C-alpha cells in the first residue's frame, strides 16, 4: 500500500521532450515509475527513452490506459496542459511547473474539484510512493520504503528531512509535496486523510512553514487522527513575509505566525520539531512507543512530557 500512486500507476509525462521533462523522465524511469506515454507536439510519433510520444494527452489515451500525469510544461501553457489531462479523465495530475499565474491555478483547482480528480501542486516537487513510483523531481536515492507518510509545503526541505529519515533507516510510505504556491490542489488535510486510511502508514511527518493558514487547518484535522504526527515548521528565525494589504489581514486575522502554528499543532496532539533533523528522532520515539506499548489511537497526544527538547 501507499497513497495516491503505486507500482501499478500508469504515468504520462506532459512535456517529455523539454529539458526538465527529459531529464526527469530518465530519473523517474530509473526509480521504477511506469511511464507509458509522453506528449510533445514536436516529437510526436517518436519514442524517448523507450516511451512513446504523442501529440497530446487525448492521443495518448487512445492508445494507453493512463492513471496519472506529471506536467513539465512551461508556465504559460501549464493551465491548458492540466485541464487537458483532467478533461481526458486522468484522476491524478502532478503539476511540477512553477510561476503559474494564480488565476490559472484557481481555474485548474476548481475544474479538478468538479471532475473529482486530485491535483498535486502546482510548483511541487511531486510525489513519491517509496520504492514503487515517483512522479516529479526529487532525487531518487533518498526515498526508501517504510512506515512514515510525509507531506510538505516546500521541496528541498522535504528532501532534507526525508534524507535524514532514510539515513536513520526510517523509510517512507509516500512523500507528497503540496506545492509552494498560494493556491494548490491537495492540501495538508487531504493528504493526512489519505495517510490516516493507509494501513502501511504508521506515523506522519508534516513539513510546514510560516505564512498562510494551511498548518492551522491541518491541526483541526489532526485532532481527529489516530496516527501520530510529527511536524517541522520552517521560518522560526526568518523575516516576516509580505502581506496582502488590508484584505490579506482580514482573511488571516492573526494566523500565519510561527508561534500560532506551533500552538495549534501541539494543541491537536502533534509533536513539533524545532530543527529539521529532530524529526527523525521524534519519529523514532513515536515508533518505539508503538512497539513497547502496543500503540493505541490517541495515546500519544495524552502524554504530558515533551520529548528530548
Amino acid at each position, binding site marked *: 500500500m501507499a497513497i495516491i500512486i503505486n507500482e501499478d500507476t500508469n504515468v504520462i509525462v506532459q512535456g517529455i521532450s523539454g529539458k526538465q521533462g527529459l531529464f526527469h523522465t530518465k530519473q523517474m524511469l530509473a526509480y521504477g515509475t511506469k511511464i507509458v506515454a509522453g506528449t510533445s507536439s514536436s516529437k510526436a510519433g517518436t519514442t524517448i527513452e523507450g516511451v512513446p510520444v504523442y501529440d497530446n494527452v487525448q492521443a495518448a489515451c487512445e492508445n494507453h490506459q493512463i492513471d496519472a500525469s506529471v506536467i513539465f510544461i512551461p508556465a504559460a501553457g501549464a493551465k491548458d496542459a492540466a485541464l487537458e489531462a483532467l478533461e481526458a479523465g486522468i484522476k491524478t495530475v502532478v503539476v511540477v511547473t512553477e510561476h503559474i499565474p494564480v488565476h490559472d491555478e484557481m481555474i485548474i483547482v476548481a475544474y479538478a474539484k468538479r471532475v473529482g480528480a486530485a491535483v498535486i501542486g502546482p510548483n511541487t516537487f511531486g510525489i513519491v510512493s517509496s520504492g514503487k513510483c515517483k512522479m516529479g*523531481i526529487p532525487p531518487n536515492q533518498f526515498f526508501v520504503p517504510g512506515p512514515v507518510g510525509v507531506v510538505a509545503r516546500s521541496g*528541498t526541505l522535504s*528532501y532534507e528531512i526525508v534524507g535524514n529519515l532514510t539515513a536513520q533507516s526510517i523509510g517512507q510510505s509516500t512523500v507528497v509535496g503540496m506545492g509552494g504556491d498560494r493556491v494548490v490542489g491537495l492540501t495538508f488535510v487531504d493528504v493526512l486523510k489519505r495517510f490516516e486510511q493507509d494501513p502501511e502508514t504508521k506515523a506522519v511527518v508534516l513539513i510546514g512553514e510560516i505564512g*498562510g493558514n494551511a498548518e492551522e*487547518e491541518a491541526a483541526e484535522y489532526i485532532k481527529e487522527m489516530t496516527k501520530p504526527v510529527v511536524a517541522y515548521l520552517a521560518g522560526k528565525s*526568518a523575516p516576516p513575509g509580505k502581506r496582502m494589504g*488590508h*484584505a490579506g489581514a482580514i482573511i488571516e486575522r492573526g494566523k500565519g505566525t510561527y508561534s500560532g502554528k506551533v500552538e495549534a499543532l501541539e494543541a491537536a496532539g502533534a509533536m513539533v520539531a*524545532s530543527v529539521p533533523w529532530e524529526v527523525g528522532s521524534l519519529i523514532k520515539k513515536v515508533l518505539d512507543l508503538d512497539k513497547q506499548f502496543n500503540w493505541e489511537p490517541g495515546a500519544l497526544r495524552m502524554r504530558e512530557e515533551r520529548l528530548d527538547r
Partner: protein
Amino acid sequence: MKMFEYMGKELFATFGLPVPRGRMVKSPAEAAKVAAEIGSPVVIKSQVLSGKRGKAGGIKFADDPEGAKAAAQELFGMTIQGLPVDIVLVEEKLQIDKELYLSITIDGSAKMPVLIASAHGGMDIEEVDEEYIIKKHIDVELGMQDFIARDVVRRMGIPLTSTHAQELIKVIKSLYKIFTQKDAELVEINPLVLSGDKVIAADAKVTIDDEAIYRQPDLPWVEEHTATEKAAHDLGLSFVELDGDIGVMANGAGITMGTLDTLTYYGGKPANFLDAGGGTGEEGTAKALELILARNPKSIIINIFGGITRCDDVARAFASVKKNIGIPVPVVIRLVGTNQEEGRAILKEVGIEAYDFMQDAARKAVELAKVQ
C-alpha cells in the same frame, strides 16, 4: 506588482468604475494647474506604495490652486516609510456621506477569490468587528453573477431599491472584471464613498500577480524593488538582508528557512536570507556570493539539496567563482541530491570537502564565524 493609486484609478476608469476627477502630477506648478481645472477644493495625495500614507501626513487638502501648490510642495519633500514622494495625485475633494469598504483578493485556503465588503469603511478597516465584515467566496467557474453582488449589497444594509444599491452592484461587477481580466491578486477600494447619489472610489489599491505580468502588456510597470533586490530577482534569487554575521545560500525557501533555524539553534546569527531557487547557473551563483559578501559575513554556508537543482551545476558554478573572483571568508558547503558525486568531485578539485548533513555544516559555519 503593486500599482500606485493613480494607476489603479486610471484602470478603474477604463472599466467604468467611478473615480474622483483629477490626475497625477510631478511638480507643485502642475498641482496648481490641476486644482484650477477642477475649480473646487482639492485633495493632494502622495503616491507611494505604502499603506500608512494617511497617518504619515501624506494626504493634504487645499481650497484653491495656491493652496494646492503649497501642499504639493510639502509632499514632494517628504519620505514615507523610507519611500520618497515623487508623484502626487490632485483630485476633487469629495463630499463624504458614508465610507464603505470593498475588496477582492485570493483566499489560498479556500482556493478561490473572496469578495470582502463592509459598511464600515475608512482608515481603520482592520479594527472593524468581524460581524460588520462580509466575506463572499466567488466560484471561478460561475463568476460574478448579479445575484452575488446584490446579496453583498443587501448584507451591507443598503436598501436594494436605492440608487446607491444599483451603483454598488455595478461597482462590484466592474471590480471583479478588473480582478480577473487583469490578473490581480488584490483590488481594494477603501474608502468607497457614498457622495449624494453617487458611489465613488476614493482610493484604489491594486496588486497584480507577478507571475502574470507577461500577459498584461497594457498595464504600466511599477518597479518595487531596490536595484540590489532587482538584480537578485532577475537571476531567480530571493534575497533579504538580516542582522547577523553568517552568510547563507540555499536552494528553496523552505530549506533556506531551515538553514537559518539551524544556525540560530547552534547560536549563530545569519547575515541574510538567500534562496537560490531551482537551477541557478554560474552567473546566478556569482551574483549570490556577491550579495552575500556585501554583508561582510564572517563565514558562509551553502546548503544544497539537489532536486531540480543539480549538484554538479552548483559545484561547477561555485568552483568557477572561487577561481575567477576569489572568496575572502571560509565557506562550508553541504551538497547532496541529484548528481551529487559529480558535484563533490568538482568541489574537491578546488579543495573543498562537502558535508553530508545540514546540521554538521551549520555547526561548522557557526564555529568558523566565532573563530574569525
